[in-house]
């Protein structure tokens, strides 16, 4: 089915099955491997991206249901110009294996967009669906708090 899709500000014309999950469209068809496959059933958060500014599990969104522009980790920042939240991730040396971190960062970025001063409970609630097998949770929490302070100009 021909579909037009805006990802990281670029329009792509695709001809793919309408039920194909956005995750695999991004990874295999558009060549954006930063978004990860962890479970395929909405249970790990590794595939988290933004659709119209909201965090969604890309493995659970069919191509036909994508309403609005998509932002992936590649669209958030680059190694040369990381987004402030990515800078805090780097400053706090959050990643271990790193595999879950695209999803963690996208989930946290959506949280901060919605709630610029999240407390620990808000972080718990927002991040509860993002698994990290390496157990980087405490540094993720610290990086989110630091990014929030930074957004407040503090």
């Amino acid at each position, binding site marked *: 089915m021909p579909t037009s899709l805006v990802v990281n500000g670029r329009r792509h014309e695709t001809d793919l099955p309408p039920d*194909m*999950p956005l*995750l*695999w469209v991004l*990874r*295999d*068809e558009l*060549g954006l*491997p*930063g*978004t*990860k*496959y*962890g*479970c*395929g*059933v909405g*249970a*790990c958060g*590794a595939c988290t991206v933004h659709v119209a500014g909201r965090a969604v599990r890309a493995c659970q969104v069919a191509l036909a249901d994508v309403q609005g522009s998509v932002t*992936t*980790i*590649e669209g*958030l*920042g*680059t*190694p040369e110009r*990381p987004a402030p939240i*990515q800078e805090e*991730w*780097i400053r706090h*040396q*959050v*990643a*271990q*294996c*790193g*595999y*879950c*971190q*695209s999803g963690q*960062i996208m989930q946290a970025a959506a949280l901060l967009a919605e709630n610029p001063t999240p407390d620990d409970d808000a*972080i*718990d*609630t927002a*991040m*509860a*669906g*993002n*698994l*990290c*097998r*390496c*157990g*980087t*949770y*405490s*540094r*993720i*929490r610290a990086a989110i708090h630091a990014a929030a302070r930074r957004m407040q100009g503090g």
Partner: protein
Amino acid sequence: MAFGVYQARRNLPNPLVAGPGEAVLNPWLIIAGDGRITIITPRAEMGQGVQTTLAALVAEELDADWQQITALHGPAAQVYYNGVLIGLGLPFRDYALKRWQARVQKATDFLPRMMGMQVTGGSTSMRDGFEKMRLAGATARETLKLAAAQRLGLPAETLHTESGRVIAPDGRSLSYGELAGEAAAIPPPDGVALRPPARWKYLGRAMPRTDMVAKCTGTAEFGIDIRLPGMKFATVRMNPARTGMKGFDATAAKAMPGVERIVDLGDGIAVVASNTWLAMQAADAVEIEWEPPAWPPDSAGLEAMITAALDDSPNSHLRDDGDAAGQLARPPAGARLVEAEYRVPWLAHATMEPMNATALLEGDRLTIWSPNQAPLIAREKAAATLDLDEENVTVNTTFLGGGFGRRGEFDFTVLAARVAAAMPGVPVKVTWSREEDMTHDFYRPAAAARMRGLVADGTALALEARVAAPSVSRQASMRLAGLAPPGPDKGHVEGIFDQPYAIPHYSVYGHLADLALPVGFWRSVANSFNGFFHECFIDELAHAAGRDPLQFRLDLIRPAHAPSAMLLERLREMAGWSGRTPEGVGRGVALTYSFGTPVAEVVELRDSPRGIRVHEAWITVDPGTALDPGIIRAQMESGLIFGLSAAIHGQITFAGGAAEQRNFPDYELLRMHTTPKIHVDILENNKGPDGNAIGGTGEPGTPPAMPAIANALFDLTGRRARRLPLAGDFDFAV
């Protein structure tokens, strides 16, 4: 000695080839004309930060500028063998290591060298690389000075190095980039002395990780991210029992658009398609009839074999201090007998990145991209499977989205090679579904323990432990070499025969259950169950003796190993351990000495309206020398969380010859809101017989977590937790 080792190593071929404008100084170092330094860090980066610290070891002696460094896995090559792998398998107790034993360990370096064991595992990377990598840096630095001396017409002794430059007394300086070409032509000097820790600039500090920026921007390339021109996407379905396939019907799958090939692998099938999702959909649509397993098909039958092994004759008796059997048969007057049995289940690795690999067969040449922990083994096995010359097989190691021992296996790499063999000339990426990953693991084995002990006068008089489980080392060496080493299996009793306790009558038997169900190395291996058995039972003994469990341990540990005692004392201070907890709060303590490093942990639980919560945890660790405290802290937290996830939730059960847990909803882990606040302190007293020991840190954080939380549950509820996972018997908040 150090110098001798380096000489021997230097005879192995250097696999590096200089690119344009580059100079290769040794197998670990490439310097480009513009001053960029590439350090080959030939251990798998799977999250443990190994590339950063291996690179720091080289950079420290090289006086390199950290900003100019790139760390790479590099090619698979014999020169990158892990020299400590065999020596650390000898049945010595690390905490009581004698000088001669340390020498014997070192003398085994030639074995992994000969066998080309380029393996990341056993928390050995720093133990192997500590001297090797610094020598690579120091020797290169001296060579660069010789090159500068020629250019400047000055004696090399008058020159010094700083931040990637050689500097003359008159202030003139030359960059490493300018000198590298000439330096590469100079024979490296012998016997270069290494700097004492007091002069370290990078080592001993938390360095910015070399992989951090890539991993925070989605640009780190994992195996699953490999993309090659013309590449096809595939997935596999194999028999969970690994016994083969009776037949299959792929009619429906073949008809699905985008499906290019169904490959009959004999023992399973692969679907090759135009994207991974199509491949997975089609693979699900294939109807397959599997051969039955060569082991009891369900958990009850499997567990019965483990229980039965407890009554069989033991494979090992690696601890036999005093006369535990005699004491237990005729306890002295006033001694109290304590008996308990413990059980733990099978566990999956559940690396965040599912198993995958990519392969391309062109004529008689095979190229592989694989997130793996043992590239030379992968190469050998892939070559043997496709009947190719090993020299014609190239293995590229990508980042690993978690390893934990799973990626030391070669099954996923060989599978990719087999699928590629059906598509000559076409690169094929084979990605397993999460379901395939979880049901085709090499599991941490289930295990059972029968413990007996005597307490008298407030201390432990005797402890006898019997541990039964399938042998991980035997299975692994069968897979690797087709034979299992005879004799006592040390790996099976690690974490229980080698603990730093001075119990006068102390006896540990290992019993092997002969089960074909695939088992493998899972972060901390047997320590992961033996630590639980030992430290839960020590807690039971402490309570039977009417003693505070931390003080009880301290009294037994102090005479055996002073650094471990200091670790417990520091832990007591940090956690504010008083031996008393208010209503609704429970605390437990445990210590396990594994991989050369003792780790002590306190876990605090709290009742809440939503169930029991893991509220806080304290960790003290002593690796002897802390090369990167930032990474060690991260590994301690990671290890604790890994252990707590297993203790509370982890279990793989079997029915119909396959694991019943297939994806994360069935295999719960700790999450942001269920992870405790964690405090870590690092001590450096555990220096070993030669005063320069260095312990592992990737695994030792895991074993004490499980008994610490079980002991905390006893403090909280008055009920002993003698089997895992705890969520089966206790009400945890989720």
